[in-house]
């Protein structure tokens, strides 16, 4: 029998969510006005956001540009090897300072009136300054720095005034898995990028769960990959998820003609799979010998851009580097033969949720009134603490709540 629809699709996220913790109002995905609120509250608010890794700017003078929502950022490695994050704007009249996605500079020059900034952000030249406004002081016009912090080379920024310190924000569950994922010490070497645009809300992009992997990804089954039994999924109250699975080495069952691609050279033999998902929108994975950090940009309520950056470890043998390149180039991400389905789902989740009712979690739900903090490897409930955190941050009430 078909189910009866109780409400109308309004397109606008309701201010009050259902009492049941497993029901997400579908409107949160397609509401353009809500996206503007999320920019203010989450992306420009009191959260840490990952915008890069030191390995992307390995040498003095290296820079990378990135966007946080609509705000352009400039990440620069200065003379003392310190990495700083600036707003990517000239302090004169606000011209975008650097247009390249990456490169190496001796200094940053704004072409408009040729103001010149050092790698450390100081204003070093500004032609015609004798005739500038009486209150002009050159030392007050260095590049505007964004508050940043780092964890094993991962670059975090926040524009909020009341963001907790990074260690507090990461909590206790995240660091052990994250450091192993980053090769133990974060001394990574950049291998390259795959960049993709999803026609999807950032929350849909971010809502991949522990239930779907063996279901959606047929190749997992065809390859006879075993998730194992010692894995876990752990969550923090502020919306992070840590996932580990054995992902046992593959017995070739004849599905692949060339099994060398899916060999596990065991750079991290205890676990074939580690995933760290940090609120709001960063996913980082280590699958087999692949180290993949996914830098996401929430462009609008219906577009999310993701830069899949792949890494080796500085101490890798040349053979292992080649293997990582081959696996990174073929298995995961938007072109990967074993998980590109995720990309198709992000788009379909976005379209399909512009209908009445709720996106309703089932697998692993044991209580309708309590957000689960204890979930199994293949439950989808691992995402509910993140939704709960999102709900609270955005100020949505629950039915019956004052």
């Amino acid at each position: 029998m078909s189910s009866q629809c109780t409400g109308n699709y309004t397109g606008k996220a309701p201010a009050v969510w259902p009492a049941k913790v497993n029901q997400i109002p579908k409107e949160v995905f397609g509401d353009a006005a809500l996206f503007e609120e999320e920019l203010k509250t989450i992306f420009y608010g009191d959260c840490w956001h990952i915008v890069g890794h030191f390995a992307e700017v390995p040498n003095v003078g290296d820079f990378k540009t990135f966007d946080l929502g609509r705000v352009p950022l400039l990440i620069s490695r200065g003379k003392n090897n310190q990495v700083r994050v600036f707003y990517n704007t000239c302090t004169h009249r606000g011209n975008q300072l650097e247009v390249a996605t990456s490169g190496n500079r001796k200094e940053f020059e704004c072409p408009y009136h040729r103001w010149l900034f050092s790698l450390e952000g100081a204003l070093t030249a500004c032609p015609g300054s004798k005739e500038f406004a009486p209150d002009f002081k050159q030392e007050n016009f260095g590049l505007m720095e964004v508050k940043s912090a780092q964890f094993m080379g991962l670059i975090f920024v926040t524009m909020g005034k009341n963001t907790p310190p990074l260690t507090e924000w990461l909590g206790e569950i995240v660091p052990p898995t994250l450091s192993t994922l980053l090769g133990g010490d974060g001394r990574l070497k950049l291998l390259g990028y795959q960049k993709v645009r999803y026609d999807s809300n950032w929350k849909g992009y971010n809502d991949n769960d522990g239930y779907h992997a063996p279901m959606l990804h047929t190749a997992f089954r065809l390859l006879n990959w075993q998730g194992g039994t010692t894995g876990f999924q752990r969550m923090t109250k502020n919306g992070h998820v840590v996932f580990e699975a054995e992902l046992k080495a593959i017995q070739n069952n004849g599905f692949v003609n060339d099994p060398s691609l899916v060999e596990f050279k065991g750079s991290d033999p205890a676990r074939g799979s580690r995933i760290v998902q940090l609120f709001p929108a960063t996913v980082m994975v280590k699958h087999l010998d692949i180290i993949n950090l996914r830098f996401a940009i929430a462009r609008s309520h219906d577009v999310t851009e993701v830069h899949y950056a792949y890494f080796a470890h500085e101490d890798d043998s040349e053979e292992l580097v080649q293997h990582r390149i081959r696996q990174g180039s073929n298995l995961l991400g938007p072109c990967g033969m074993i998980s590109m389905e995720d990309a198709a789902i992000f788009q379909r989740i976005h379209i399909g949720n512009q209908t009445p009712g709720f996106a309703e979690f089932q697998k692993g739900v044991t209580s309708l009134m309590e957000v689960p903090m204890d979930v199994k490897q293949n439950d989808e409930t691992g995402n509910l603490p993140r939704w709960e955190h999102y709900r609270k941050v955005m100020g949505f009430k629950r039915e019956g709540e004052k």
Partner: protein
Amino acid sequence: MSSPSLLSSQSTASRKDKSSAMVPDDFMWQGYSALETQWRVERLLSRYVACIDDDNLEEWPSFFTQDACSYEIITRENVERGLPLTLVFCTSQGMLADRIVSLREANIYPQRWYRHIVSNVLIQAVAEDHLEVQSHYVVLQTRRNGQTSIFSAGKYKDRIVLQADELRFAEKRVVVDTHSIDTLLVSPI
């Protein structure tokens, strides 16, 4: 980030493609005149893209040499930065076949039609046993709503040999200008 990649002049200059050298008008290769060689190369490329666009993908691996071959799709952005990671990287006919098996049996993706347009076919080097050929491509995609857009633009860098009386790719390197992929890439280019 949406602005085109204007890389630092240093790194771009060092990795520029030095491809303007001309081969003579009147070479002979494997018994073919220059004109006939050009015609055979163009026919190979036309058959190759017809195979993809007409969805005869099971035949796609046979356009490559049997023993060792290489098929690579890499973004121009990675190439110009000297970064080795690719979008697709196959080093055997077996791996090419695995891509197709996976596309047919495992992958889920939006149904789209692809149409390749190949032009500017330029033989850049003539060696005794192979040719080096560059050409430009555009892939148009037509979504289910009937709208057509450009999915990918770039160039082919091919190393072509004669094997069992057929021209085949010993190496095919697809250098993609369009480094922001629309959703996913499932079909070969």
